[in-house]
């Protein structure tokens, strides 16, 4: 079965969707991604949809789901690279993707993730991060 690769980059997970999604592929991605968040202790998920030309209500819902699921696993999600035509279509369709953070490109998305995670860091997490840097 087809699968969308999930890359690990430090504290973050990186997903670049390069193919046209059909329902099962999107559902598999959702399940894989949530598993990976737990397994890798990821603090952030970055989803690049710059190559996706169509986001319909189902796909939109999956993106929203991934963001909410990651959130309750203590991880932030940022969707980057949405094409303008996709944004127009999503709003007209009635799917404003509330609760999903977005950025224009991968670079800005990474900065946003970093800033969100810095805000969330409390003392306990600081120790952990120091350890991570020492490695």
């Amino acid at each position, binding site marked *: 079965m087809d699968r969308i690769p999930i890359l690990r980059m430090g504290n973050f997970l990186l997903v670049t969707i390069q193919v*046209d999604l*059909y*329902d*099962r592929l999107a559902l598999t991605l959702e399940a894989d991604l949530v598993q990976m968040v737990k397994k890798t202790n990821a603090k952030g998920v970055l989803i690049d949809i710059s190559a996706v*030309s*169509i*986001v*319909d*209500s*189902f796909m939109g*819902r999956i993106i929203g789901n991934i963001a909410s699921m990651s959130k309750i696993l203590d991880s932030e999600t940022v969707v980057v690279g949405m*094409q*303008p*035509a*996709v944004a*127009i*279509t999503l709003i*007209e*369709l*009635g*799917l404003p993707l509330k609760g999903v953070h977005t950025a224009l490109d991968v670079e800005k998305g990474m900065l946003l993730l970093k800033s969100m995670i810095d805000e969330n860091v409390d003392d306990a997490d600081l120790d952990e991060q120091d350890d991570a840097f020492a490695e």
Partner: protein
Amino acid sequence: MLSLSKETIKVLKEQDVVLLRNRVKEVAVKIKMGLVNQTRLITAASELLRNMLRYANGGNCIVEIVSSGRNNGVRLTFIDKGPGIPDIALAMKDGYSTGKSLGLGLPGTKRLVNEFDIKSKVGEGTTVTIIKWANG
């Protein structure tokens, strides 16, 4: 309204959706439809295909290039032999769904296209026709 080309595509499984989306895209590019309208049309098609697969186990889609006056457009007709929709007015309401979806499919689709027509008979099936004009 003149029909300039016509083909029928069977949709029976999820992967057929990708195939049909590509075909619709080709047709839309052929009549020089702008990118935003293409995206609207393909998204609308995607919504209706999903309905057809979920509620009626698939059906047929007729892809046509139509012409009316100086306007060219793409007409898509989705025909299934599913259970039918008992109350179309209710199905067209935002946020209503008998399944587990968001209930955006039909009303959302209507907002994305220029012309939208739905006919349904309980026990016989549903036919949805949409038209998107190249510059509409």
